[in-house]
């Protein structure tokens, strides 16, 4: 059975980050098929379309000891607002956005992340620049890699898992049913290599320059990293200040 490179990278990252696997919770929704959990055996919650980030927010607040990882597809459509606000609050979750430029399994549906896709008249809207949205809504860790940048991606994931705060990693990778039903379309493994070949590593690049277009190479790299108090940190700080000794730190 062919296993997507993403799974092994994630598994390696969990191992490297030395996180107890019981404490890892994956949340995902319909824009990305979460086979990953079935192979790796983490707790998985597969929720309504676009609501994985607020669901993860609740999980993290319900039990701050969990390490909540959100696997999503082209998250900027459904739930784009949740993305920005979770980022603004610095909720302590890792968002791995698997960008396949298309919704797997849904033919003819436009994705907001690419210019030319398979709608009967193609897509004439401009795509969205995910790292830039993450950066401008104040995420603490922003990176983009293709699925074949295994070493770099593992490193990024390890870093994000070990960090507290809202971390976003965009992974460029074909979905599992990419171009389904379209004759003469590239095969999955050809495509994944194509992305890798047509990318260029530029660490610490300003995120406003990393928009993906048909003309330019895909710019990948670790774009941004910073430390900032998480929602729970700020909650504890504020309440200790106002309530004083009667307040028990929420953890």
């Amino acid at each position, binding site marked *: 059975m062919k296993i997507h490179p993403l799974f092994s990278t994630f598994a390696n990252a969990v191992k490297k980050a030395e996180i107890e696997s019981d404490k890892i919770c994956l*949340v995902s929704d319909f824009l990305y098929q979460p086979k990953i959990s079935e192979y790796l055996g983490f707790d998985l919650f597969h929720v309504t379309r676009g609501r994985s980030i607020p669901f993860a927010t*609740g999980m993290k*607040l*319900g039990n701050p000891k969990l390490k909540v990882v959100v696997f999503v597809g082209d998250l900027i459509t459904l739930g784009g607002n949740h993305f920005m*606000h979770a980022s603004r609050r610095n909720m302590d979750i890792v968002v791995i956005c698997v960008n396949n430029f298309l919704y797997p399994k849904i033919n003819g549906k436009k994705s907001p992340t690419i210019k030319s896709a398979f709608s009967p008249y193609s897509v004439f809207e401009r795509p969205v620049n995910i790292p830039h949205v993450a950066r401008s809504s104040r995420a603490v860790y922003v990176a983009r890699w293709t699925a074949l940048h295994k070493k770099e991606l593992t490193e990024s994931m390890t870093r994000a898992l070990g960090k507290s705060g809202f971390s976003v990693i965009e992974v460029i990778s074909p979905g599992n049913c990419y171009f389904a039903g379209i004759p003469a379309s590239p095969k999955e493994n050809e495509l994944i290599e194509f992305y890798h070949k047509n990318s260029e590593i530029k660490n610490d690049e300003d995120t406003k320059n990393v928009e993906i277009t048909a003309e330019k190479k895909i710019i990948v790299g670790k774009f941004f990293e910073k430390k900032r108090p998480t929602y729970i940190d700020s909650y504890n700080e504020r309440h200790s200040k106002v309530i004083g000794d009667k307040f028990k730190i929420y953890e």
Partner: protein
Amino acid sequence: MAFGIEAEKEVIMKANKKDVLTGSYYIDGDVAAAYGAIAAGCKFVGGYPITPSTEAFEAFVHRAPYVGGITIQMEDELGSIASILGAVWSGKKAMTITSGPGFSLMMENIGLGAMLETPFVLLNVQRSGPSTGLPTQAGQADMMQSRWGANGDYEIIAISPDSPQEMFDYTIKAFNLSEKYRCPVMIMADECVGHMTEKVVVPEADKINIEPRRFYKGPKEKYLPFKPDKDLVPPMAKAGDGYKLHISGLTHDEKGYPTFSQTPDTKRLVDKIRLNADKIIELNEDEIDDADVVVVSYGITSRVAIRGIEQARAKGLKVGNLRLVTVWPFPEKRIAELSKKVKAFVVPEINYGQIVYEVERCAHGNANVVLVPHGGGFVHNPEDIFKAIKYAAQEKKKVEGIIEHKTELYRLIHEKNS
């Protein structure tokens, strides 16, 4: 199987002393609901404040840090309800608080809550609608939405309190029911009850019974997240405990894995409420045994209706009062039973007809059903309810369908004039 049997034993648990502010208070219904939630052990509220429910959210936010709880004001109601589902799965008791427009946004995740058999409580302080409607005025027009709002088949429990004291008491009951049946429980209050200030007595902690979460107690590797006990409700596990949960909103089997056809688990979502309905339903009945007319009402209207009923009784009419404390599941059997004995049902509600359809369905054509509609914005004038009772008591012939009281009066007046 052996694993469920432990959970079937009656576990009597009392409220936590720290969570209960024993004493008498003069507070509004919204605040009372927040106090009730805390007394029931609720530790998480994700909400988006909306009139007329803001006081409840505010009161919870204020008290939460003292009882080890946490709150978050989400970006919208879609997020609020998703967040409480997440919090429940990581082990907390959780509630969200909203009103009409927010309630509409919450629908998809009410469906998810039902599908994942997630126990949570939703307080809807109803305003008058549709859409933004009358934010500061009472309505009862979300009743059908609460039952049928999300896509697909599922059952929920809905309670309709009529005073701040009941907002406190029934919020606790709502939490207990949701834990017992692992389903969404809605408190369908209205602006009038939410904003009304009355005396609320908070009893001592050991007088408050709490239904504990049904955590699975068997060996980890044998756990199946959707394998039910005898009462059709599966025991629960929480995230982070090493159960390798696979919890999906897709139609799933006992393991939680997606299937490509309906499974017995889908039917169970409906059955666990329907087959336990007799245990869930709570009704208040008054002078119903020899009544000619029975007034069926819920929420604030059930209080106002008593005035009309008293007026009618003073005129010698035999009127019974049936108050629905739990509106969903609907007391089908009781209404069917009564329909054989009484002439008519009178159903006042602050909408243009919702629960009246249920009454008509269960009356099976045996008795007339008279609706006393109200467009919202205020409560009924008791006089209107009295007139409807008088009309219902006089009408001898069986009329098909629902008789809308005011329209009927106009018809009678026109017939007389012409």
